[in-house]
Structure formats: C-alpha cells, structure tokens
C-alpha cells in the first residue's frame, strides 16, 4: 500500500503544494526538451532525404561546437569563427556526399548506417587531432549569448529562469519554424520531399540527388552547430557530450523518424517527462532515473503506436 501511495499520491500532492517548484521543473524540462528536439531534427532531415540513419549526428554536434571554440582559441574573433564553422559544416556536407553517399548509392541501408559509424570515428579523430581532446568552455559571452538569471515571483514562490535557457529555446523555435516553412513551401523543400518518396521518380523530373543530399547534410550540420553551442554552454564542449545525442533516439521513436513536428513534440515530451520523473519519482528509486526514463517512455509508446506519434501514416492500396 505504502509503495502505491508513494508512486501515485505523494508526487502529485507535492506538485500541488509547491506549484512554483513544478513550474521550475517543467521549465527546465522544456529547455532540455527543445534541445533534444533540435538533435532529433538533425536525424529526421537526413533520414527523410537519404534514408540514412545518421549515427554521426551526435558527433557532428560536438565537432561543430569544438571547431567553433577551437578556432576562437586559435585567435579568430567569435563571429569569424562562427562563419568559418558554418563554412566547414558545408564542406563536411559536400565531403560526405562525395566520399560516402555517392559511391554507396543504392546499397542496402545497413551499409550506409555502417558508413556513418565510420564518419563518427573520423570526426572524433580529426577533431582531437586539430583541436585537442580536453574539454573546452563555450564562448558564450563572445557570441552575445546572455548569462545570469531572471527570478520570477509567481504562485507564492520563486521561479528562476536562466537567460541562456530562454535564448536557447527562442533560437530553437526560430530554427524549427524556419526549416518547417522551407520544406513545406519552396522548390528545394518540395524536391527534398520528392526524393524522400521516390528516388527514381525524383531523378526523372530532373532533381539531382547529389544536390539535395548536400542541402540536407548542410542543414543537419547547421542544426548540429546550434545544438552544440547550447549544450556546450550548459556544460563543456567535449566528446562526452555526444551521449546527449543518444537521448534523441527515444525522441525519434516517439516522434517517428520521418516527422519534423514529431521530433519537436517528442523532444518536449521526453525533456519534460524526464525532469518530472527525476524530481518527483527519482528519490523513490534512489536516483539515476533520468538515465533510462526516456527509453522507458519510448518503449511504452512503441507498444501502442509503432509508427510514432506523427510518423507517416502507411498508406497502402490493397
């Protein structure tokens, strides 16, 4: 009885008795969730256009952040370092298309997946070689990202919002909205969806697969850079950061591998669910719950909606 009480009653009583704490927890979960969404978005972009599950997405995030900080360390002003990093992500997209995708076109998915493993280790090695392997601090101030916090007095208590978190959420929302509009309403967006649907038909109307692949890998690279900056600012820039990308997997299961809205909503559910679980139910299990809760939520979802929350409905004529 006691255990049921502790699971189903106590946490909710706690939430009601201290609403400010609840708001604080949800906010922190929301910010984490927005960042998960961004990482998941990188996966979705590439998967939609090329059918490749890009295992290297997490490393691309670290690599982008590391390049930015590293270039700054080597003396480039922040804005130039940022521009250079974007250029390097573009070069990476072109390189991946030339060296990995083009020679492996029409190969089974598993081979392309393995190729992205290879890409992962290449980026780790290359990053360490050029910029060193020790953790670095993100150059938040130089990029004009705000620091400090805002205290709000609401619900008879105090809620602390980190300004950096507010900026992260805002940037993420703008990026997501921009990408959504781009893919829905423009020629390249349409071409991208066409490629996602049927390679041969896309070729027959003159869409160049190579060009589309460069566009999506570049878009995923820019998203990776944005996520890298935000995560890097919250902790440090190091290769350990790539485990964050693993959190995108339950987000993808939840949202569906092919859906941009799914990545966003999935990210938010995982982010907020994780924080609530950690804060209210974590002590029951002796902590550590945030490590696996996301996977547990995703698993529960798989039982009921295997195509994910917003995964493409499987339209099939019989």
């Amino acid at each position: 009885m006691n255990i049921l009480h502790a699971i189903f009653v106590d946490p909710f009583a706690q939430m009601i008795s201290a609403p400010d704490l609840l708001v604080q927890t949800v906010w922190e979960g929301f910010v984490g969730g927005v960042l998960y969404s961004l990482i998941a978005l990188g996966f979705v972009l590439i998967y939609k256009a090329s059918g490749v599950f890009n295992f290297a997405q997490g490393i691309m995030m670290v690599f982008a952040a590391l390049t930015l900080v590293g270039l700054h360390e080597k003396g480039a002003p922040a804005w130039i370092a940022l521009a250079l990093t974007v250029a390097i992500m573009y070069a990476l997209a072109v390189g991946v298309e030339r060296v990995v995708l083009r020679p492996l076109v029409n190969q089974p998915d598993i081979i392309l997946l393995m190729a992205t493993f290879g890409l992962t280790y290449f980026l780790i090695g290359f990053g360490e070689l050029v910029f060193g392997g020790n953790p670095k601090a993100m150059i938040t101030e130089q990029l004009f990202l705000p620091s400090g916090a805002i205290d709000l007095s609401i619900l008879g208590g105090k809620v602390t919002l980190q300004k950096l978190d507010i900026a992260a959420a805002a940037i993420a929302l703008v990026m997501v909205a921009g990408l959504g509009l781009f893919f829905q309403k423009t020629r390249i967006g349409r071409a991208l969806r066409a490629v996602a649907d049927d390679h041969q038909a896309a070729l027959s109307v003159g869409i160049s697969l190579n060009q589309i692949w460069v566009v999506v890998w570049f878009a995923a690279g820019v998203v990776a850079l944005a996520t890298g900056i935000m995560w890097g600012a919250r902790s440090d820039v190091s290769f350990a950061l790539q485990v964050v990308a693993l959190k995108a997997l339950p987000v993808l299961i939840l949202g569906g591998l092919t859906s941009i809205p799914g990545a966003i909503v999935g990210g938010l559910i995982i982010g907020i669910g994780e924080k609530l679980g950690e804060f209210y139910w974590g002590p029951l299990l002796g902590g550590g719950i945030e490590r696996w809760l996301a996977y547990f939520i995703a698993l529960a979802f798989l039982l009921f909606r295997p195509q994910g929350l917003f995964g493409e409905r499987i339209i099939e004529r019989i």
Partner: protein
Amino acid sequence: MSDTAPEILLSLEHVSLAFGGVRAISDVSFDIRKGEIRAIIGPNGAGKTSMLNVINGFYHPQLGVITFGGRARSRMRPHEAAAQGIARTFQNVALFKGMTTLDNIMTGRSLRMNRGLFWQALRHGPALVEEIRHREFCEEIIDFLEIEAIRKTPVGALPYGLQKRVELGRALAMEPKLLLLDEPMAGMNREEKEDMSRFIVEANRRLGATIALIEHDIGVVMDLSDRVVVLEYGRKIADDVPEVVKADEKVIAAYLGVAH
C-alpha cells in the same frame, strides 16, 4: 510527314545493353522524329522498358551512340537527361505518394525554378513571384487533364487510373521535348483508355511534345502512333508505319508464335 526530310530529335545507333551475361538489347537502331508519336511494342521481356531506361539515362548501354537534339551524348545521368528535355512516366506509377497532386506536378517545374537558396529560404521577393508563376502553369495542366477535383489530395490515396494521369501531368509540367510513356494505359478500362489516348494526342498536337510510348494494346498503338518499332528478345524485328508493321510476318510470328 512532309516531303522535306523530317527533323530527327533522337537517334539510337547500334545500341547494346547487357546485365552481366544477359543481353537486354542487342544492336538496336532507330530514330524518333520531331513531333511524332512513336510506339515501341513487343512481347514481354523484349527490352522495351530497358530501351526507355537507356534513353533517359537510368541505364548506360555498353555499345552504341545516342544522339539527342543533334548532339551525341556520352554517359548521361537521369537528371541531366531531364535537364535536356526528356520526361517520362513509369510502368508501375512512380509518384511522390505523400504529396498532393498539385505538389507532385509542381516537382515537374523543378528545373525551371532557379531562384537561389537565399530567396527561397526567405520565401520572399523573386522566389515568391516565381512560385506563383509556376503554380499557374501547373493549374493549366490540371485543367487540361481534368483533375481539378483532386488537386489537394495526397496521390497515395488516389485510384490507379488517376495516379497515371497525375504522373502524365508531372511529366508535362516539364514542358519536355521528348516524352517517354511506359505503358500509360496498363490496367485501365476502355473509358479510361479513351481519356488517356485523348490526353496523349492533345499533348502531342497542342503542347507540341514528341512522344515515345510503350503499349500492349495493339488497337491503341495503331490508332495513336505515326510509326512503330517492334522488339523481340532485345532485337529489332520491324520498324515502319502501323499498317505495314501489322502485316509483317515476323511481327505476327512474335506475337502469335509460329510452328517450326
């Protein structure tokens, strides 16, 4: 066909294509004149679809010369063939199933829309003007093919006959010089076939597209086409106007089988 020498749009000379040890096409030569409807017929496995795949660059023949618009071409990839004005439809409808009819047809305009990524990202200024202009063109095609009612329907949900029509629309949106149709009437009933025949003739007369089509319904082929090339086991066995081809002994043998 007038007395003056007709202009040749596409010619294939001694084309051979093999997959490993299997010869799909053996030493086939024929040409397609500007403005005509050219039929490619033959029993199953004769190499008809392989022929179309060679013309639009999905396959690269080991031997032979292909000349399009007066220029001999080397290995050409499908999207480059598209850029030169070759459009096609597929035997088993290849549409973008998750997209609407209108969006599918708009993809046919891809090559003609060339405002930069920058403007497109903003969806403003020149890119917006361009989008609207091409949208109007696609609406005309939709009117032409009488598919107004399904403009906003995802094509995956449409019946087969309509999907074939949308696919034709997407190819026409490219304003192709040469339109390749792979069994445009397969699996259709009489009425649908008549509609499709009408669209093909209109596309040829009114929109000025040169057409090469594969079709099994001999009646349709004889009605529609100006000239017919007949393939069997990857070889050309006849090439002439429909009346002559129909009476050709080798063709009759290929279709009906002949006692040895």
